[in-house]
């Protein structure tokens, strides 16, 4: 990439290895990643895929065992200090002093960024206002809601307007409202020139926020591309139809203009699920077809594929479509 802000080449990290390097858990197993300046890049994967290890290495908290890792033009091991001047980190848990107030937290971090007492204070006020926390700045963070805490955490990671911002599962554990708040905040960063790398377990979140997505599994990138490319590779959107009568499932399957082996049927829930190419056309088509055939549906819904479905697609042994469409797929191989 012409203007890469994050470069990871063949990064490896093993926890708990013996002195000889044997044994232990391979958290990163030859991971490659390039993130362009000013973009939002999502690292998508299940628990234990190596996402947090990657973020911790990028944020200079952890040393890779091998490989080249550069952030903003500086090596994360040899030039950790230079990297730290240019990054912000939002870890998986809100890294705040719960006994102090919101403003006190921001002032504390501002001083530790060496802004000086006055600048730290004004910066704290600016950020509290920007994240809608001005009224609660005096309250102890321990009394904040999950969403508020996360926003304050985000504010703390933006004190110096970092060149690169790392968000490790920014919405895990938040209710839908808290999630929406964080999404809005992240979107407002885009355009400010900040490069954002976020990890997530939710395809929808990556889709909502990211320009590019890297799918990781077992410590390596198994696919990457834009959300559209990945969705195409993973079968795109799906339509779920719940019928009133399970006996009509077979007839309904026959009506859908999709290869039969791509439709999943759940008799207990009277549910059938199929990939669709064009959302609205598919929805209208299914409604009309069911009506004409006299099949009563209780519910019809369009949705994104779940991460499980996407993963099955990407790691499935016989599926070469993912490779074909995404182009940069590295030897996936499901475990």
């Amino acid at each position, binding site marked *: 990439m012409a*203007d890469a802000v994050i470069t990871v080449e063949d990064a490896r990290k093993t926890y708990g290895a013996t002195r000889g390097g044997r044994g232990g858990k391979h958290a990163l197993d030859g991971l490659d990643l390039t993130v362009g*300046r*000013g973009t939002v890049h999502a690292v998508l994967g299940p628990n234990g895929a190596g996402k947090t290890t990657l973020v*911790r290495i990028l*944020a*200079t*908290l*952890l*040393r890779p065992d091998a490989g080249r890792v550069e952030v903003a033009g500086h090596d994360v091991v040899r030039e950790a*200090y*230079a990297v*730290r*001047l*240019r*990054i912000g*980190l939002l*870890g*998986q*848990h*809100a*890294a*705040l*002093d*719960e*006994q*102090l*107030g919101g403003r*006190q937290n921001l002032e*504390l*971090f501002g*001083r*530790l*960024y*060496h*802004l*000086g007492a006055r600048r730290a204070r004004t910066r704290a006020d600016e950020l509290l206002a920007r994240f809608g926390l001005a009224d609660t700045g005096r309250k*102890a963070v321990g009394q904040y809601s999950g969403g508020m805490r996360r926003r304050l955490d985000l504010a*703390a*990671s933006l004190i*110096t*307007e*970092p*060149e690169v911002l790392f968000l490790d599962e920014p919405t895990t554990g938040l209710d839908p409202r808290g999630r929406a708040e964080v999404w809005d905040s992240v979107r407002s960063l885009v355009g400010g*020139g*900040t490069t954002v790398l976020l990890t997530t377990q939710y395809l929808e979140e990556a889709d909502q926020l990211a320009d590019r997505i890297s799918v990781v599994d077992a410590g390596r990138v198994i696919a990457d591309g834009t959300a559209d490319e990945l969705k195409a590779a993973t079968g795109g959107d799906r339509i779920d139809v719940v019928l009133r009568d399970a006996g009509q499932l077979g007839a309904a399957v026959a009506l859908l203009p999709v290869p039969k082996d791509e439709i999943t049927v759940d008799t207990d829930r009277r549910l059938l699920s199929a990939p669709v190419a064009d959302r609205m056309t598919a929805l209208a088509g299914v409604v009309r077809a069911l009506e004409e055939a006299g099949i009563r549906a209780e519910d019809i819904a369009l949705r994104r594929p779940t991460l499980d479905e996407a993963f099955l697609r990407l790691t499935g042994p016989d599926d070469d479509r993912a490779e074909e469409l995404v182009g940069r797929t590295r030897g996936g191989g499901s475990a």
Partner: protein
Amino acid sequence: MTTHAPLTHPTAARSQTGHGRTAHALTDSWTMTRRELSRWRRQPVAVVVGLVFPVMLLLMFGYLVGGGRGVSGDYLGYLVPGMLALTMAFGLEGTMVAVTQDLDKGVVDRFRSMPMANGAVLVGRSAADMLQSALGLAVLLAVAAALGWRADGGPAGFLGAVGLLLLFRFAMLWIGIHLALVAGKPELVQAVQILVWPVGFLSNAFAAPESMPDWLGTVVQWNPMSQTATAVRDLFGSPGGEPGHVWAAVAWPLALLAVFFPLAVRRFARLSR
């Protein structure tokens, strides 16, 4: 390459130099110390409870449980230096709790990802804990004075005794930091907290070792806390004081520091492993 202009701090360039780094180490340590002081201001009740607890122990052992075994003379005079030493030993718990909380909440991670002097996290912790312990000593001494206790060792002896107590606390502090870094999780801290009690009470804080079975007396006499208590009694001119223990009360904490200070620092640096 177009450079995004971050809100770089004026000290960014300077901080790359050795001089800037030293200045940062000092200001960052002070900032971290102030953080603890702000926490006290926000949680005065917790601070008061921490200060009152040793006072309660003093009253309980001085009046409720009554005279220590094998102590001749004024028991309050014997007990006060013991309680002072015990308070310093119990400080280890507070240090551990604070360090593990920061580790668990990821606050330490944030500090470590920032362009600050990393050592300031530990230096700030030490400074704040030492301040709190000095305050604890002052409160306990004031209560003891109100109960009629007097130090008869003169100003030099008094200052020497306080110095020995704080030195002992400083050793406990670094043991606490090391154990917290090893334990990592607040749940494991509880186990260590429970262990602090027998170690604290297997000392000459409340009773003379001579009154105990031989083996126990030996353990108690070797307890570094007992050395400090005996030396402090000597310097205060209190019952139970024996001359010649000051060197041990200096050597023990220094020996503990020689072991645990480098261990803690190494453990902290190894968080990146």
